[in-house]
């Protein structure tokens, strides 16, 4: 006869019982957009730093504006998630050193000027139409290659901070075993870089740049797989709540979506397609990048949802 282990509770708080589902679609959407923008800042920063911006069709001139739009959309999603919206300004009346969310709020404040500095290097015609003085500013910036290099460095550093913070936000929560791995920020940063490389690859006009991005994306996807292996090794050799958290993705309720959409369609198949493309066996198409982008989005949904589902429940049985 099996041992009985049963816990019943009279608590039935909305979105908490029977299992935590407090963070809904807004958080994964924000984490995905924030991660992808972080990757795009690193890529455009690298293009500035390495001198690729000297080529007239460098995508580093279109990335920053798209980044501002996507990041703002992500922040709007985050705003929608807030339950006490009129008090949102409270984020900026304090800095809580132990709170990753407070760090994130202030990092976002720094990210915008870095992106705007990048935009000012080469404003688009419609921007010049609205505010012709921008061309003067662009001229001044372009006179100083050293300044451009520094804008590139600032974009890379802030991109790294933004991408890493999206992972730390979750991994700092010991209460949710699936999030509680110090590799989560690496996973989100690499996934953000991969989605960013795929996204920029979709509209890059420069052929050499496009080829470089596809190659870089292949590297990011391989690293992402490696990070997944490391995360699962860590969980499976840890305490029971962590083992159970890993099993949620590997064999449990979230396994179908994890294996099919995150690993299969989000990493392995686009990796194979892009490996064939960079080796000139097939032509570059937009299929693989689109799969990578969707894979990154679904990864955030799976991690946020399964993470909330993972718990210390069994440790209840003392």
């Amino acid at each position, binding site marked *: 006869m099996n041992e009985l282990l049963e816990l019943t509770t009279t608590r039935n708080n909305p979105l908490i019982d029977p299992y935590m589902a407090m963070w809904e679609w807004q958080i994964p959407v924000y984490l995905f957009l924030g991660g992808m923008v972080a990757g795009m800042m690193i890529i455009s920063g690298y293009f500035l730093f390495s001198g690729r911006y000297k080529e007239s069709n460098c995508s580093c001139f279109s990335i920053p504006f798209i980044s501002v739009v996507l990041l703002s959309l992500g922040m709007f999603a985050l705003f929608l998630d807030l339950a006490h919206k009129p008090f949102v300004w409270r984020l900026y009346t304090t800095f809580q050193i132990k709170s990753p969310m407070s760090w994130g709020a202030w990092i976002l404040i720094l990210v915008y000027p870095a992106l705007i500095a990048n935009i000012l290097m080469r404003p688009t015609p419609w921007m010049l139409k609205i505010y012709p003085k921008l061309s003067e500013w662009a001229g001044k910036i372009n006179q100083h290659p050293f300044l451009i290099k520094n804008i590139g460095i600032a974009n890379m550093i802030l991109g790294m901070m933004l991408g890493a913070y999206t992972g730390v936000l979750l991994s700092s929560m010991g*209460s949710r075993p699936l999030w509680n791995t110090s590799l989560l920020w690496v996973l989100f940063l690499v996934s953000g870089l991969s989605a960013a490389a795929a996204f920029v690859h979709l509209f890059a006009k420069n052929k050499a740049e496009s080829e470089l991005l596809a190659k870089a994306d292949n590297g990011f996807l391989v690293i992402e797989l490696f990070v997944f292996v490391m995360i699962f090794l860590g969980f499976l050799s840890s305490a029971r709540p962590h083992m159970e958290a890993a099993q949620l993705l590997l064999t449990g309720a979230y396994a179908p979506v994890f294996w099919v959409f995150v690993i299969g369609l989000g990493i392995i198949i686009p990796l194979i397609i892009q490996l064939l493309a960079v080796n000139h066996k097939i032509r570059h198409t937009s299929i693989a990048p689109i799969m990578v982008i969707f894979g990154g989005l679904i990864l955030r949904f799976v991690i946020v949802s399964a993470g909330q589902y993972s718990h210390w429940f069994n440790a209840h049985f003392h």
Partner: protein
Amino acid sequence: MPRYGMVIDTRKCVGCSDCVIACKTENNIPEGYNRDWIVTESKGKFPDIQMEIRTERCNHCSETPCVSCCPTGASHIHDVGGVVLVEHNKCIGCKACVEACPYDARFIHPDGYADKCTFCIHRVEKGQKPACVEVCPTYCMYFGDLDDPNSEVSKLLQSRKWHVTLKDAGTQPNIFYLV
């Protein structure tokens, strides 16, 4: 400086939910929400089955992930007794503290802020007991200063066997269950 805590005698608790009703009435908790609740734990192998009934709420932990993660400082440790509280007009409703609590003891109040047990600090500061302790018909709940070796709670913890919930989560809860 006191350190407030609760001791609950699981041998006396019958799960009548009087504490739950008292809390809801005293603190005007909206319908469908609970700051405290009753848990029944059964374990063993037939015929050796054990059952424990206990009343649960925020553990007012000494290590507070809910306070650390708060981006605005709304979630804080009160000056008196180390009670964990939420300042409503500082809370942005980001839900980080709800996620950070391994006991799932917090919820989002329909008015938007994070809410939870306050150990009825408004009563305690007037020298009264928390509402749940006050009404318990089996006298299974004790409230007091854990740092005072002569307090009722300290003496019970010295003389009886006890456990806390989710010890492995590492938050050092300040609610103890006598067995």
